[in-house]
């Protein structure tokens, strides 16, 4: 049987590991990814665990790696991707790695610090340069305004300078542009207006050495008299974080200083460039190993983290690990143990023990790339209980098929098929690209689902005879004689002519799918409605019968054979007697009633409405006589229907009371047995009951332990019965969405064609570019509305049909997923 029929069998194993072999063994097991280790030290604080120190070491290394990565990102150094995943490092490599990382980190930290220092020095020098330059302008201006002659010698100006302004002093500095207005106001207030401030903006932006942000600065000069004001001004400057620069008032000194500053700046720029080069070289050298180290450290951390789960043996000689392993993978684990033991050369080999347990194992479904998508669809609803039948196996076909019933259009299906096929054929290269978009991940994960949906939709599209809302005439319409029979008068008299099937249609229906003549009929929808509604109900009832039958497999597996008679049997009889009978009526109507015979009683006017017939059956009502038609299809129909309804209704109390009564009888029998044993030996017999009770408490998937109070059993059964009975009706009607969505789809595509594409049919030369544009609009709308929106909508409805209408009939879904200790999983989680 296929491995997807139910979840894999799991065993709980104890592995005894020699301490020397522990690390390489975990490294191998992580690569294999087949064991789910249990935490045996749950109540131990994470800092008190055995390998806590190693985990802290790994954390430290990760921190250093992150720091280096951040620095690389700041400098935009490229980190090349890995070709292949490296293995977890052995202890010797770890020490080397640690030392290397430490050295690298130290280097980079030193370089960063020195570059910060250099940058602040540089900043100061640049500011000084600007101050000198701009203040020179001020002094020149002032001298120009003071001196009578515009072109005085500098030396003589100095003399004039000294005359009236002997007490005027100034400070010059640089402040951030944003703070300038507030600064000005403050200075004005502090000096009571006895200050003259001049400012010039610096056009070049400065880079803040610490944050790297760009700041605009302004040079200012403040002139004042007296020392007190000088003190105040200095204080205000420091408060506003303006940097003051000593500025000589003498223009000669000014020029000299300026020259010096310029030389200093050049030197510093050289040093900074050299430092930057050195930094780039170091970072580049480390860059190619970055990802490699990341993976190694991650693996190492995972190994130690998992090793913290292990217990120390009583003799303190080896580690004990407990874990769930799929039965099919046990030999692989054993061979790994023996190889590692022999390669480590330890005196006693590590070995494995399978232990019996009542614990609930995790659910593991082995999937390949094709079945993974479908398994995900089912797991999203709920993880199947351990040992339960797996609905994903049937979903592989029923899901795309039910989608196709709602989507049926060859043209749109081909678009979907191309998209799905593209993703499947190029899956390797697309996966390697590691596209991060979430929408793409969803589409790519479901590529096989999309491929199958496209394939099935092509089939249903052929049967609905709908390709972009047009029909194909492959086999020749079977109404061709009708067309031939129309005379010229008929055409002249009437706008519309309705073909009469008793006279006009051929004896042979269109062999594959819907006759293409219906595409042109005004009453197409009437015909399609009857066809599609019956189709939906037929498939719906069959799907539900399939679902109920699945529960038998679960009853057999979980040793509840009595449920087959007490639960499954009444459920299926109820469903088949009522709704199965409706399906039979539909088929009878298809086969028996037609307009082509001579008997009017099986003709068009007498064909019964299935719905009315069903309602009358349920209400035990006589159908209304009309038109000389037969009341019933065949003679013993009323008695047969009555029997079916009575049988169906009788199933309800069976469902309601069957199982609880059986449980009561069973418990009474058990108690009698215990009482008999009790009389023989009292004390010893009490214990098995207690043990049985605690065992029953553990088994959650059972749901009905031996100690569950009887009232709970009754209530549970009542809820179950009501749910089932109501759901047969509501779910049957729910399957009509297959009809509704396919109608919506075909009507939408018809609207797009007749209202958009048709207007481009012109007979002039203008028509050519016009067709081009109209086709563009039509194609865009087709893909956006009909393929994407309708596709998504039909997908959702099909998912609902599976989850609610199909799986609620048998699915338990109380399991938990198998999460093996696997490097692949851990690394992909980190990304």
């Amino acid at each position, binding site marked *: 049987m296929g491995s997807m029929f139910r979840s894999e069998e799991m065993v709980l194993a104890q592995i005894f590991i020699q301490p020397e072999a522990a690390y390489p063994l975990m490294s191998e097991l992580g690569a294999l990814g087949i064991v789910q280790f249990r935490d045996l030290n749950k109540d131990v604080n994470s800092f008190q665990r055995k390998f806590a120190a190693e985990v802290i070491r790994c954390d430290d290394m990760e921190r250093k790696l992150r720091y280096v990565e951040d620095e690389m990102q700041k400098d935009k150094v490229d980190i090349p991707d890995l070709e292949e995943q490296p293995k977890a490092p052995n202890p010797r490599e770890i020490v080397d790695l640690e030392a290397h990382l430490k050295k690298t980190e130290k280097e980079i930290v030193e370089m960063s610090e020195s570059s910060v220092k250099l940058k602040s020095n540089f900043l100061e020098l640049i500011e000084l340069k600007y101050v000198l330059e701009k203040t020179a302008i001020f002094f020149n201006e002032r001298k120009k305004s003071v001196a009578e002659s515009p072109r005085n010698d500098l030396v003589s100006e100095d003399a004039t300078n000294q005359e009236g302004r002997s007490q005027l002093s100034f400070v010059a500095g640089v402040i951030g542009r944003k703070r300038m207005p507030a600064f000005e106001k403050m200075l004005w207030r502090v000096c009571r207006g006895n200050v003259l401030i001049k400012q010039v903006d610096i056009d070049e932006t400065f880079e803040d050495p610490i944050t790297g942000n760009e700041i605009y600065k302004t040079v200012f000069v403040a002139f004042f008299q007296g020392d007190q004001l000088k003190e105040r001004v200095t204080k205000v400057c420091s408060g506003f974080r303006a940097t003051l620069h000593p500025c000589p008032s003498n223009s000669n000194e000014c020029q000299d200083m300026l020259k010096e500053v310029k030389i200093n700046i050049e030197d510093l720029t050289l040093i900074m460039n050299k430092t930057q080069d050195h930094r780039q070289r170091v970072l580049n050298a480390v860059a190619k190993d970055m990802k490699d180290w990341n993976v190694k450290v991650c693996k190492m951390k995972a190994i130690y983290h998992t090793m913290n789960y292990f217990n120390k043996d009583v003799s303190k000689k080896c580690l004990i690990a407990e874990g769930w392993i799929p039965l099919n993978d046990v030999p692989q684990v054993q061979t790994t143990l023996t190889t590692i033991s022999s390669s480590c050369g330890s005196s006693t080999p590590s070995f494995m023990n399978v232990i019996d347990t009542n614990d609930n194992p995790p659910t593991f479904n082995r999937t390949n790339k094709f079945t993974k998508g479908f398994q995900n669809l089912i797991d999203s609803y709920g993880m199947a209980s351990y040992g339960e039948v797996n609905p994903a196996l049937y979903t592989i076909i029923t899901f795309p098929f039910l989608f196709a019933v709602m989507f049926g259009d060859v043209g749109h299906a081909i678009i979907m098929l191309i998209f799905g096929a593209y993703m499947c054929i190029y899956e390797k290269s697309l996966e390697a690209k590691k596209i991060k978009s979430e929408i793409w991940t969803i589409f790519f994960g479901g590529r096989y689902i999309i491929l199958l949906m496209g394939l099935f939709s092509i089939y249903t599209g052929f049967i609905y005879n709908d390709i972009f809302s047009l029909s194909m005439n492959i086999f020749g319409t079977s109404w061709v004689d009708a067309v031939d029979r129309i005379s010229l008068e008929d055409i002249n008299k009437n706008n*519309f002519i309705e073909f009469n099937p008793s006279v006009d249609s051929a004896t042979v229906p269109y*062999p594959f799918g819907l006759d293409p003549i219906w595409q042109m*009929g005004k009453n197409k929808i009437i015909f399609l409605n009857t066809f599609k509604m019956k189709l939906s109900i037929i498939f719906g009832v069959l799907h539900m019968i399939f679902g109920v039958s699945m529960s038998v497999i679960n009853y057999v597996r979980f040793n509840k054979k009595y449920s087959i008679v007490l639960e499954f049997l009444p459920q299926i009889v109820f469903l088949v007697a009522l709704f199965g009978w409706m399906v039979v009526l539909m088929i009878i109507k298809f086969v028996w009633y037609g307009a082509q015979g001579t008997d009017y009683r099986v003709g068009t006017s007498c064909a019964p409405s299935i719905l009315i017939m069903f309602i009358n059956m349920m209400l035990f009502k006589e159908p209304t006589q009309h038109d000389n038609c037969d009341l019933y299809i065949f003679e013993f129909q009323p008695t047969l229907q009555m029997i079916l309804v009575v049988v169906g209704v009788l199933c309800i109390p069976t469902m309601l009371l069957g199982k609880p009564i059986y449980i009561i009888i069973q418990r009474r029998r058990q108690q009698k047995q215990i009482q008999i044993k009790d009389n023989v030996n009292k004390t010893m017999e009490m214990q098995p009951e207690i043990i049985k009770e605690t065992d029953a408490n553990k088994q959650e998937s059972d749901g009905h332990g031996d100690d569950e109070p009887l009232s709970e059993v009754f209530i549970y059964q009542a809820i179950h019965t009501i749910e089932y009975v109501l759901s047969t009706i509501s779910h049957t009607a729910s399957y009509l969405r297959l009809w509704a969505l396919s109608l919506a789809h075909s009507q939408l595509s018809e609207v797009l064609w007749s209202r958009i594409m048709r207007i481009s049919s012109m007979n002039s030369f203008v028509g050519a570019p016009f067709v081009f544009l109209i086709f563009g609009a039509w194609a865009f709308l087709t893909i956006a509305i009909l393929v994407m929106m309708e596709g998504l909508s039909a997908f959702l409805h099909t998912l609902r049909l599976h989850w609610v209408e199909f799986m609620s009939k048998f699915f338990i879904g109380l399991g938990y997923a198998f999460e093996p200790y696997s490097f692949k999983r851990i690394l992909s989680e980190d990304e």
Partner: protein
Amino acid sequence: MGASYIPFIVFTTLWAIVGIVLPFVVPKGPNRGIIQVVLMLTAATCWLFWLCCYMAQMNPLIGPKLDRHTIMILAKEWGNSPITLAK
């Protein structure tokens, strides 16, 4: 009954081969069961779908209602009617 038996036999045998014969021919491997289930379900659903469509049309209760221009074009293209589009 208004049904010829040829399409019925053709399609039933086609899907019978897919659903009943092919599962025996599936190569042995880990996915044998899955492929068998896939084949059987495909055959069953597709055959039933075709059958419903065929049954719906073999004894039609109503006929298509066509506009007269459409009928004239049909007569010209598909049929042997004396009606022409000379008008």
